[in-house]
C-alpha cells in the first residue's frame, strides 16, 4: 500500500513540476496516437460509410473482415508492420523501423478496422428514409449519402474516440516497431511497462494517471459534443 501511496505522491509531484522527460513522453504519445487515429479515420470513415451505403461485390466479406480485425491482437499488427518495415521487408528501403513513423503506422493499422467497422454499424443503422427524403428535397445521390453520414455523426465520432482509446492504450505493437528508445520512441504505455518491470513505480504511476486523465478529457469533449448535438 505504501508503494502505491508513495508512487502517487511522487507522480503528482512529477506532473506538477513539469518534468521534461515525463512531458516529452506524454506529447510523443499524443502525437503518435493522434496522427494514427487521423490516418485511421481518413481511411476508416469513408470505408465504413461506403460499406453501409453502397452495394458491391465482396461487401459482406469486407464487413466481416473489418469486424474480425477490430479484435486484431496488437502484437500481430506489430509483427505485420515489423515484417513490412524491416530491412528485408517490402518497405524496408524507407528506413522507418524503430521510428515514431513506424509506431504511427502500427497504431493506424490497429485503429482503422475499429473506426471502419463502427462507422459501418453507425451509418447502416440510420433510417433508410433519410436518403429518400434528401432525394425528394433535390439532393444528388452523393449529397443524400453525405446526409446519411451526417445523421450518424455522433456515432462516427464515438468510433473515432474508440480508435483513439485503443491506440493510446496500446503497448505491444509500438514496442515491437518503435523499440522504446528513450527520447525518441518512448511513449506512455511502453514506459509504464518498462518502469514497472524495473520496480520504479513513480514514473509508471504518473503516466498511468496521465493516461486516465487523457481518457477523461476525451470523454468530456465527447459529452460536450453530444450535448450540442454536433450540429451540421
Amino acid at each position, binding site marked *: 500500500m505504501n508503494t502505491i501511496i508513495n508512487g502517487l505522491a511522487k507522480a503528482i509531484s512529477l506532473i506538477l513540476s513539469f518534468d521534461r522527460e515525463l512531458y516529452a513522453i506524454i506529447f510523443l504519445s499524443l502525437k503518435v496516437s493522434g496522427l494514427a487515429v487521423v490516418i485511421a479515420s481518413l481511411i476508416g470513415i469513408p470505408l465504413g460509410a461506403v460499406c453501409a451505403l453502397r452495394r458491391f461485390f465482396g461487401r459482406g466479406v469486407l464487413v466481416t473482415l473489418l469486424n474480425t480485425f477490430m479484435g486484431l491482437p496488437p502484437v500481430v499488427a506489430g509483427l505485420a508492420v515489423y515484417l513490412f518495415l524491416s530491412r528485408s521487408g517490402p518497405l524496408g528501403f524507407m528506413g522507418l523501423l524503430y521510428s515514431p513513423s513506424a509506431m504511427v503506422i502500427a497504431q493506424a493499422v490497429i485503429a482503422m478496422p475499429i473506426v471502419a467497422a463502427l462507422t459501418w454499424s453507425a451509418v447502416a443503422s440510420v433510417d433508410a428514409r433519410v436518403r429518400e427524403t434528401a432525394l425528394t428535397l433535390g439532393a444528388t445521390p452523393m*449529397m443524400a449519402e453525405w446526409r446519411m453520414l451526417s445523421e450518424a455523426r455522433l456515432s462516427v465520432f464515438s468510433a473515432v474516440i474508440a480508435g483513439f482509446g485503443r491506440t493510446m492504450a496500446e503497448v505491444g505493437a509500438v514496442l515491437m516497431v518503435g523499440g522504446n528508445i528513450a527520447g525518441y520512441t518512448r511513449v506512455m504505455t511502453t514506459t509504464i511497462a518498462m518502469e514497472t518491470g524495473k520496480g520504479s513505480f513513480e514514473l509508471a504511476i504518473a503516466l498511468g494517471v496521465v493516461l486516465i486523465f487523457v481518457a477523461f478529457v476525451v470523454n468530456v469533449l465527447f459529452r460536450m459534443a453530444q450535448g450540442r448535438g454536433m*450540429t451540421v
Partner: protein
Amino acid sequence: MSMSVMVGGLNKSYAGRRALDGVSCVFEPGIITAVVGPNGSGKTTLLRIAAMLESMDGGSVAYTDGDSAVQPGLSLMRRVTYVSQAPVLFNTSVRENIAYGLKARGLTKHEVALRVDEAIATGGIGHLSESDARRLSGGEAQRVALVRAYALKPEAAFLDEPTSNLDPSGVAAMEALIMRMRDEDGAAVVIVTHNIFQARRIADRVVFLHEGRVVESGGAPEFFASPQNGLTRRFLSGEMAY
C-alpha cells in the same frame, strides 16, 4: 411553371398482390388533385411512383412542360417534391431542415435565408424555427415537413396525408399552405387523404381508387355532388368499411 404529370396504365404488384391495376390519371398545373379511397386501394403506391420514388411493373409516368416532355434526371427531381405521411426530419434544427433543399440547389446564403424566413412565416412555425427537429411532436414534424416542401416552390408536389397528425388549427394552416402552392406557384399538387371533408375543401379534382383501380375521377364539385359509380356513392356515404 406549368408541369403536368401524366400517369398511364400503371401496374404494380408486391409479392404477387396487385397494388395498382392499370391506373391512368393526369395531374395538372395549378390544380389540387385529391386521391381518395379505402386503405390498401393503392393511393400511396400511385403517389410514390408518380414522384419517381418507386419503380412500376408496367405503364408510364410522363412529365410534360407545355408540349415538351421533361427528361428524367436531377433537374426534374428538383422540380418535384414528396412528403410522406410519417415525414423524416434531419437531425438538425428546423431551420436547417427547411434550408436543406435550397442549399442542395446551390442557392446563395442570402437567397436561402430569405426563402427559409418566408416559408417559416407563411407556415406559421416561427416558434419552432430554432428547435431540434428530432424533438418535435408528430404534428409539428408534419408541419415542418410541409413547410420544407413549400420552401422549394415545387412544380409538382405529392403529399401523402399531409395533415393526418394535425389539430384543426394546424390543418387550416397547412391547407392554406397547400393552396398557396397551387395559387402562387402554379404547382400540380396531389394529396392523398382519408378526409373527405378536406378533399371537398381544397381539391379541384378527385381520383377515387379502389383495389388498385380508378373507379371514378373528375372535378371535385361534380364528384361530390353527383357521383356516377355505386362504389363511389357507398364510399362517400360512409357505407364502405375501411
